[in-house]
């Protein structure tokens, strides 16, 4: 009986979650650098299956310029219509990650990124660092506004990059 309970516990402990992870993006053009930060990203990793999901509230992206933030929500992301972005994927090299041992592991994550109801298959390289009492995940990848039907008018075409760098930095705790 105890053995059974113990088993149940370990199965449960294989999931890790955070509600205040970080996702930021950076757009560089000769005309302007645009940067936004979101510290309210929710995510879960299932260590047993390698599954990983993210939920990102678009309105939680904050810009140094408030007006830019308003335009981001109103004109580009239409965040009243599409409040959330999400990612649902899998660690493809799960076998090479030892969740029992502290240390940094290179991982490849593949999955579907959904922004504004447009879904794109993505692959990104990142790291999962096993630490005492949780794990940290970091990655960087490039997305393009075009892939998610974000229309950029000609007057600001010089100011918004075609390739936008996304930085993800998460600190998970077991659940």
């Amino acid at each position, binding site marked *: 009986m105890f053995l059974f309970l113990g088993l149940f516990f370990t199965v449960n402990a294989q999931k890790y979650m955070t509600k205040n992870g970080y996702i930021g993006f950076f757009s560089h053009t000769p005309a302007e650098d645009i940067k936004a930060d979101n510290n309210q990203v*929710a995510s879960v990793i299932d260590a047993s299956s390698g599954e990983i999901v993210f*939920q990102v509230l678009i309105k939680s992206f904050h810009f140094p310029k408030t007006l830019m933030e308003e335009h981001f929500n109103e004109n580009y992301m239409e965040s009243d219509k599409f409040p959330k972005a999400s990612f649902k994927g899998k660690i493809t090299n799960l076998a090479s990650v030892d969740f029992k041992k502290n240390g940094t592991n290179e991982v490849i994550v593949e999955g579907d990124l959904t922004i504004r109801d447009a879904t794109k298959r993505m692959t990104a390289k990142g790291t999962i660092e096993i630490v005492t009492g949780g794990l940290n995940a970091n990655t960087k990848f490039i997305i393009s506004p075009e892939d998610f039907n974000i229309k950029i008018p000609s007057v600001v075409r010089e100011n918004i990059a075609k390739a936008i760098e996304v930085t993800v930095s998460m600190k998970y705790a077991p659940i």
Partner: protein
Amino acid sequence: MKRLYFSFLLFLSPFFIYGQEDLMDLLDKESKPEINYTTATFKSTRIMNGHSIERMPPGQLDFRISHRFGRINSGAYELFGLDQANIHFGLEYGIFNWLMVGIGRGTYEKTYDGFAKFTIVRQSTGEKVMPVSVSFFSSVAVNSLKWSDPERTNYFSSRLSYVSQVLVARKFNQSLSFQIMPSYVHRNLVETELDPNDLWSIGAGGRIKLSKRISFNAEYYYVATSTTYQGQQVYDPLSIGFDIETGGHVFQLIFTNSVAMIEKGFIGETTGSWGKGDIHFGFNISRVFNLK
């Protein structure tokens, strides 16, 4: 044995499916209901001439230049009013996320003005539902014209006039916003006995977005107590025009029967009539700087 193993897997399979689905569900369950404040009810702090409920966010400085040309019906000799220009400059700043202040100077009666606008209630959905946004606007204007009668004892206070407005707005959807604004104007000294010191008025304005960056705006004030200004008949101010947004700028193109670009002036002292073609073309340019 093989069969047993297989049925065991079959037995487990629903759990696996459940296990896969529930990662997203887990997050959904964890996400707290939030208060979703309505933003961008209007593109600018002005609907046309008058203020909208929008306010500069903290640390943002808005430099505004507004122009009203002469009357369109003044004919080709005046190039339909373009030969004359009335200007209003303004510097406006957001202090808190509920307070903005501004100062300005206009050609019309060489007037200096200062105002404060307070956000009282914000339209929201979600955890807290609020159907409208409410702001309070208060301004003072100083007419700096030479005294009309330098012989008599003139007091500085005679130059002053005050405006108070309650702005109530609702963003019905992405493209349609509407606002009403009960307004009170007090003028310390008026030129003739026929000009009332106190003016009561109610305004209504709105916008319809034509595209993401262009909207059609209109604004009208019904003035209950005013009939003349310095012997000239006054009319209710009506303005129509467009907001055009380009990055950090908002351009407003405007057709209006008033020359003044501050409340005190256009509410009580609009002597142009749309019916007679006393229409002024003009524009407001807003450039926002981040001082944070």
